[in-house]
């Protein structure tokens, strides 16, 4: 096989594998979710197409972080509470943005590219970056 032919075949193989490689790369950036040793039952697995969500493991992660950081207090309730409570699958109420989590806490939560965490009062919210849709909520997870 000539070098030129080998190179052409390699390029063709890469082009054919492109979408699969991209999917693998995206999957690699999502950490494996640890299974809880005990405690509340995990929500039933959702179809992959439903996107990321928060679960009991994440609530335990937040609890442990709060216990280790007694000086941190969640932001006050959002204006208009309780009507401003976040609802999964919907945008946040107008005028409600929440506050950024402490980076040390956000870093311990699952990383979903294209999403960000916010604190809304005592609620932990996962927002899709583009439209700001609520992808997940842990009500009261940040409350002391």
């Amino acid at each position, binding site marked *: 096989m000539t070098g030129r032919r080998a190179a052409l075949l390699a390029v063709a193989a890469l082009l054919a594998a492109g979408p699969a490689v991209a999917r693998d790369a995206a999957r690699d950036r999502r950490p*494996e979710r*640890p299974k809880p040793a005990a405690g509340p039952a995990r929500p039933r697995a959702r179809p992959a197409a439903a996107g990321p969500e928060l679960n009991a493991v994440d609530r335990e992660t937040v609890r442990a972080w709060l216990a280790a950081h007694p000086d941190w207090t969640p932001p006050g309730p959002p204006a208009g509470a309780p009507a401003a409570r976040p609802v999964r699958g919907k945008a946040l109420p107008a005028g409600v943005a929440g506050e950024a989590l402490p*980076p*040390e806490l956000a*870093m311990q939560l699952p990383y979903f590219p294209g999403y960000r*965490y916010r604190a809304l009062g005592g609620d932990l919210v996962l927002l899709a970056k583009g439209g700001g849709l609520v992808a997940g909520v842990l009500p009261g997870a940040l409350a002391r």
Partner: protein
Amino acid sequence: MCTVILLHRPGHPWPVLVAANRDEMLGRPWDPPGPWWPDRPGLVGGRDRSGGGSWMAVNRAGVVATVLNRPGSLGPAPGKRSRGELPLLALAAGSAAAAAAAIAALPAADWRPFNMVLADHRGGIFLRSEGRGRAEVEPLPAGLSMVTAHDPNDLGSPRTARHLPRFRAAAVPDPGRRDWAAWARLLADDSLAKSRADALRVPPTDGFGTVCASLLAIDAAGGLRWEFAAGPAGIAPFRPVALDGRPA
């Protein structure tokens, strides 16, 4: 939540090698290493524009000073001095040992808890402050040391547990040939195992992430070579830093 990796090889022509990733709020402004402090001639470092200090700097005597937060102490706090001034204070000294002594003589409660890694051609020194009393001083042993917000080589740090073995297995850089390839690749690794806490290059999200990187070598005579990436490693290229008036 930065990371500093230091390799000490006593008797080697390049006895000390340092690699560092700086993790910071993405919106916090900073400048790449330069002589930003005219009242401190010979001092070259990256400048945090908010506090005016530095996360990593060097002086003419061949001393390197870095500062990191301790767990749970990220960011400024009312009534506390900026930790960025600590490298500047340390680098008034002519050796890493003297710099460590100078920092350890200060009231640690003036700053939020911090770690420091100081080094010269004799080796590295770790300082730990819990924000009270005085900072504790520990010489770093020969070999590889990895410091995060935790203690050196503390496997309780997910990042250290995951990446220290990778540095141990990697080819040692050759600063004389400007060959840092193996360590540069490791600094550029933004893969995750369980969460961003175990990433060496922290992916940017929630306003926080790795913002820049450094590779630095000290030769046996105390001479320095510093390669700096003005962005995350693997995205921004490493380029030589001009030191002590000499072109890069």
